[in-house]
């Protein structure tokens, strides 16, 4: 699966319809409140009973931001009142204890992620306190292969802080850049210094972070192919191990913050396509491997290696190389995955805090996967991560006749085959290099809930 040399603009325009990102299947839209704290407990108990329980992955959601970035669609809370964030931390402490008590203590945490919001809204003492609290309630792996990552807002961090984060045990950093162009930065209310950001990437390496990942966004107001190329060139000069290039989906009716962006300033679809095309060709020319969806990595990065040997996984943070883990989500709105179930915390901060004050788990909703869900999840994961589906594997593992079970789905793939997104042959679906840019479109054909309800208008545009 190499990236295509000619950019399929027409196909992307044609298929530029709504679609989920499949960081999970079934997607969060299917979660329901019938799955409650009791159901979660049962799934955790049963995961502890596994003969070889899966190692753990922890996600901690720290939702506070000092300022509002106008493009943001995350669950966050903008406040300069640091006392508010302290109150949140006190509840987080309690949730960590409650969650920690549920999982057998011999289950190693091999993956840890602090996401936001802006995790670095908190100062070093507070962040160290959270790590200590996790360490007191879970068995954190000491192996070099552990992946402990934190999202950094370069505006809130200096070289000294980077060294502190490394000392706390983080070994991966993900840095929000979005765009270096000053006019664009002003239009989205996120002004950050280019020199300083590049220095921080350097400082992260010197402090011992073994992977630096950078987030960029295309489709932001006032972006032009020329201005964005300059940003990419500058970012590439620091040679990050991984790059995520996200599409800005302008949905002001859904996300209040985006109403601050004037719709006329948002690039028209043709310009978006140019932005995407030139970004991809620049990154590929610079030696980066296209992993899928929005992600690129250097060829010696584990993601690129995992892609080659077929061990790539998809999870809530995008792609991962970890062997399968049970994911414990902590903090407001955090999502977890334990056994064959997904769970999500209350998404309103006050409600989440109130639930913890009452001494209970702040579970909002979730979903226990059916056998059919698991089968489809595996097929979608094969499309997104391996780029091919071998029917025999699924027939053996799930006791189905693939052609029979997915007769309608296979029929619906035929137009995609004619457009060159996939190759269908006896017993396999192969994603082509063109199809790699439209993975969601292919995966959607196996989404039972989408098939049953073909209206998903609120999804972000595929491209």
């Amino acid at each position, binding site marked *: 699966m190499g990236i295509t040399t000619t950019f399929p603009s027409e196909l992307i325009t044609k298929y530029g319809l709504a679609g989920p990102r499949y960081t999970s299947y079934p997607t969060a839209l299917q979660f329901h409140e019938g799955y409650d704290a009791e159901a979660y407990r049962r799934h955790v108990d049963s995961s502890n009973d*596994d*003969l070889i329980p899966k190692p753990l992955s922890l996600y901690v959601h720290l939702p506070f931001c000092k300022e509002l970035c106008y493009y943001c669609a995350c669950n966050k809370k903008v406040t300069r009142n640091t006392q508010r964030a302290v109150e949140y931390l006190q509840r987080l402490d309690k949730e960590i204890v409650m969650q920690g008590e549920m999982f*057998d203590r*011999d289950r190693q945490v091999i993956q840890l992620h602090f996401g936001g919001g802006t995790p670095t809204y908190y100062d070093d003492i507070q962040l160290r306190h959270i790590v200590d609290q996790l360490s007191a309630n879970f068995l954190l792996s000491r192996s070099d292969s552990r992946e402990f990552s934190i999202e950094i807002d370069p505006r809130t961090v200096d070289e000294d802080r980077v060294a502190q984060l490394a000392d706390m045990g983080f070994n991966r950093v993900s840095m929000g850049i979005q765009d270096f162009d000053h006019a664009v930065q002003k239009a989205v209310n996120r002004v950050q210094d280019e020199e300083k950001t590049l220095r921080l990437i350097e400082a992260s390496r010197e402090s011992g972070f073994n992977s630096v990942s950078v987030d960029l966004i295309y489709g932001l107001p006032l972006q032009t192919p020329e201005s964005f190329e300059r940003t990419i060139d500058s970012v590439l000069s620091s040679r990050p191990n991984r790059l995520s290039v996200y599409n800005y989906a302008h949905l002001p009716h859904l996300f209040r913050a985006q109403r601050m962006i004037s719709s006329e300033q948002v690039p028209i679809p043709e310009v978006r396509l140019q932005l995407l095309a030139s970004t991809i060709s620049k990154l590929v020319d610079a030696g980066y491997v296209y992993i899928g969806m929005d992600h690129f990595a250097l060829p010696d990065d584990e993601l690129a290696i995992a892609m080659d040997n077929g061990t790539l996984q998809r999870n809530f943070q995008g792609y991962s190389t970890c062997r399968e883990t049970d994911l414990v989500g902590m903090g407001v709105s955090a999502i977890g995955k334990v056994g064959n179930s997904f769970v999500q915390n209350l998404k309103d901060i006050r409600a989440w805090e109130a639930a913890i004050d009452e001494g209970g788990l702040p579970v909002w909703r979730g979903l226990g996967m059916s056998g059919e869900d698991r089968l489809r999840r595996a097929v979608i994961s094969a499309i997104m991560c391996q780029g091919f589906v071998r029917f025999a594997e699924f027939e053996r593992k799930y006791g189905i006749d693939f052609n029979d079970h997915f007769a309608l789905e296979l029929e619906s793939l035929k137009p995609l085959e004619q457009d060159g997104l996939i190759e269908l042959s006896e017993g396999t679906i192969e994603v082509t290099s063109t199809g790699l840019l439209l993975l969601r479109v292919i995966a959607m054909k196996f989404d039972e809930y989408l098939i049953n309800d073909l209206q998903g208008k609120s999804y972000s545009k595929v491209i």
Partner: protein
Amino acid sequence: MYRAMSAESQKKLYFPERLQVACSQCTLGDLCLPRSLDPVGLEQFEHIVNKSRPIQPGEHIFRAGDKFVSIAAVRAGCFKSYVIDKNGEEQVLGFYLPGEIIGFDAIHEQIHRANVVALDTSSICGLSFDSVSEMARQLPQLQEELFRVMSLHIAELEASAADLSAEERIASLLCSLSRRFASRGYSSKEFNLSMSRRDIASNLRLATETISRVLARFQSAGIIKVNRKKVAILDSDKLKDLARRDTC
């Protein structure tokens, strides 16, 4: 500490009900106590059998301190027997699969010393021990079968009492389960365990994490493959070697 005989549980277990499945038609016919009886003996035997209603996971069929009245033959599912030690810790004594008999340990004191709980949705056939011994006096084949079953049980216990390493113990348990599943007409190569790793750890007197660590080691050596509570045996020769057994 012993509770008085729980009349309630005894009643629930052996409520009088006409036998629905005759021993002669039972799929466990070749394994269970009456397997060596002739048709006449078998019919006689059927009269002393009380079939139970389905038993839910977590439901006890015997409690420590219960007066010994009956033994039970597992028809379906899986049971574990355990005692609570001085420190209040649970100590798992053993696991019972279909066709196996529970309760022989209570004969000498006429009191059950172990708690016996279902790990899966299960069912049993209850046998009044007085009736069984009475019948064994008349039918030598039944008496021989009783001796054989008890002897087998003692032999298994003695084998597991040997000074074995963690790896040897776990391999030995897998071998034993594989053999027992096979003799019940299930696959010897792939089976679902009803017991949790904590139960196994307690039974083998090992730390819970040792069970997972050793199973993971077996897995990376290509001897077994584990998926949640399902075990597939890929290399039974190596497993037998590890268990220091000739047969699995």
